[in-house]
């Protein structure tokens, strides 16, 4: 498995088995001047297609470093990470970019949308680094916006959208390339509680459609919507268990009153 070698971009489209992520004794060490910082000290994890996992942990527990490696933004110091059978540790910078483009969708805490750029153009962004025709690019982006219920806001700028709407644009951007996995790093960190639940509702419905989601959060309330809970401490996995009874966002939302002007249409 982990000794499978990535040879050509075509391999990226081969889904060898149901195993999406296989991580074996992953170590990540930073060198800051004279010191070595051990961010991850041997993490092993397997994730299959269609999961909805929440990664929890205090700051400094290594969950962000882990997320960066999962997202192919960073490479492990030791150990192996294979994503759909591709050994990520062996890839060069440009090959990692290709993996990010084809297989991974990011959702960030701060939305990370381009300012003064319409929602549609923001969603189009991943397709720019892909051989997609202009027409298809717009079609796919509109489709992704439709999935998050924002097709009517396609030509609005981020500053004309509420926080929840901005995060939904970001989710649409993460989905536009049909990735194998959506990685969400504190996606509700900047949102009020009602909007947070609305975002979780979208994640839950995407997961029901078969999209794998891995979510980093330090809020137990939010993690409670996931089907699997992984807790990090001191660079290791402290616990990893299934959530027998995940909260259903569409039901929770009924119990939260509308509070302020940040009302979604």
């Amino acid at each position, binding site marked *: 498995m982990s000794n499978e070698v990535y040879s050509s971009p075509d391999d990226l489209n081969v889904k060898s088995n149901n195993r999406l992520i296989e991580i074996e004794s992953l170590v990540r060490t930073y060198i800051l001047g004279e010191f070595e910082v051990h961010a991850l000290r041997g993490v092993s994890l397997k994730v299959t297609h269609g999961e909805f996992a929440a990664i929890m942990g205090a700051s400094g527990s290594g969950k962000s470093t882990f997320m960066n490696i999962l997202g192919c933004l960073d490479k492990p110091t030791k150990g192996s990470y294979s994503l759909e059978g591709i050994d990520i540790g062996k890839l060069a910078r440009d090959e990692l*970019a290709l993996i990010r483009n084809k297989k991974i969708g990011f959702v960030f805490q701060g939305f990370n949308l381009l300012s003064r750029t319409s929602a549609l153009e923001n969603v189009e962004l991943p397709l720019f680094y892909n051989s997609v025709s202009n027409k298809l690019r717009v079609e796919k982006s509109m489709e992704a916006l439709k999935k998050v219920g924002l097709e009517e806001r396609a030509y609005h700028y981020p500053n004309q959208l509420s926080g929840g709407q901005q995060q939904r644009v970001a989710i649409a951007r993460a989905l536009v390339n049909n990735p194998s996995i959506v990685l969400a790093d504190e996606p509700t960190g900047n949102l009020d509680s009602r909007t947070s639940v609305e975002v979780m509702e979208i994640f839950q419905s995407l997961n029901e459609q078969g999209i794998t989601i891995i979510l980093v959060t330090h809020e137990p309330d939010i993690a409670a919507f996931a089907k699997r809970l992984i807790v990090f401490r001191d660079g290791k996995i402290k616990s990893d268990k299934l959530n027998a009874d995940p909260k259903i966002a569409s039901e929770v939302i009924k119990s939260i009153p509308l509070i302020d002007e940040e009302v979604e249409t």
Partner: protein
Amino acid sequence: MKSLNIIIAAFRALRRNKMRSFLTMLGIIIGVSAVITMLAIGQGAEYSVKQQIASLGTNVLIIFPGSQQQGGIRVGAGSMTTLTEDDATAISTDCPAVAFVSPGTFSGGQVIAGNLNWGTSIQGVGVDYIQIRDWNVQYGNFFTDQDIKGATKVCILGKTVADNLFPDSDPVGQNIRIRNVPFKVIGVLSKKGQNAMGQDQDDVILAPYSTVQKRLSHYPYLRQILVSAVGPKEIETAQKQVTDLLRMRHKIAGFEGDDFTIRNQSDLASAATATSQILTILLASIASVSLLVGGIGIMNIMLVSVTERTREIGIRMSVGARGKDILTQFLIEALVLSLLGGITGIILGIVGSKLISNFAGWPTFITAFSILLSFGFSILVGLFFGFYPARKAAMLNPIDALRYE
């Protein structure tokens, strides 16, 4: 397809920051329009200098007799009595590169017409003189071969002389007295203006050289022979032919020096042309400095923009942009800015030079060369100064870039 996408991405990025894009271009716009205008002015100056020199007669050779040497004392050029009418005739018949020949002598003195008088110089010349000097007779006629043979007392007045002696009347047909010798005015020359040394070329009276020799100077030799080559390119050939002919006629052996001097106006012409070329180069280099400053402006703004857009770069990388995609996008942005700036600058430069030639009355010339030069230069500037910021952007680590506030 992918590279087209990156071009679209670059244009969108520029459009998002219209003000910044415009300010960046401004440097290039000013630089390019300055180069175009300066070159146009410089080339205009070169042209007018060339014109003035052409009016002096650039293809003219002047042959002076050599200097006299008596027991170690050399009297100076023109003091020898070696040039004769026969030399002049021989040059016109035996030198194929020579178009016109005019024997020359001169005298000076007070000229009286009625109750007015004027001191001026009297040039004794041949019939071809006005062809050689590229001059025209404005009123009346020039003298003929008959006048030379008969040494008739006729003369043609320069404009200045005519204005001073005949302020209110037509001089043609009137009589004047040059040093008490009566002459009949048969023509007036057109105005020629100052020569390169600032002398008034119109303050002159032309008369047949034979008349001046016999009636005024009483000096039977020629002071000079004016020769024009068949074309500006044949000056060297003409000079060689005249030199060989005169050495033969004067029986000068191979090792002896010439007993005459040939002065070549093209030296003056090339000096003046060189001066105005230096002027053009000077103006262009001053303007290039502003183009360079414009380029540094692009680099500055692109660098600031890389810092300001660090997060954007992080986002792009996280969705799959490779380092070279970012590099390409930033390079295209710089290139587009300098290209648009270059085109605007060229238009402004053309308009500017037209305005200058209209209002200041200077001739200006816009050549394809100056447009290509400044356009090419602005592309180079864009690529050169765009590369460093683009590379900096491409080298960013996506994780750090995403966290950048």
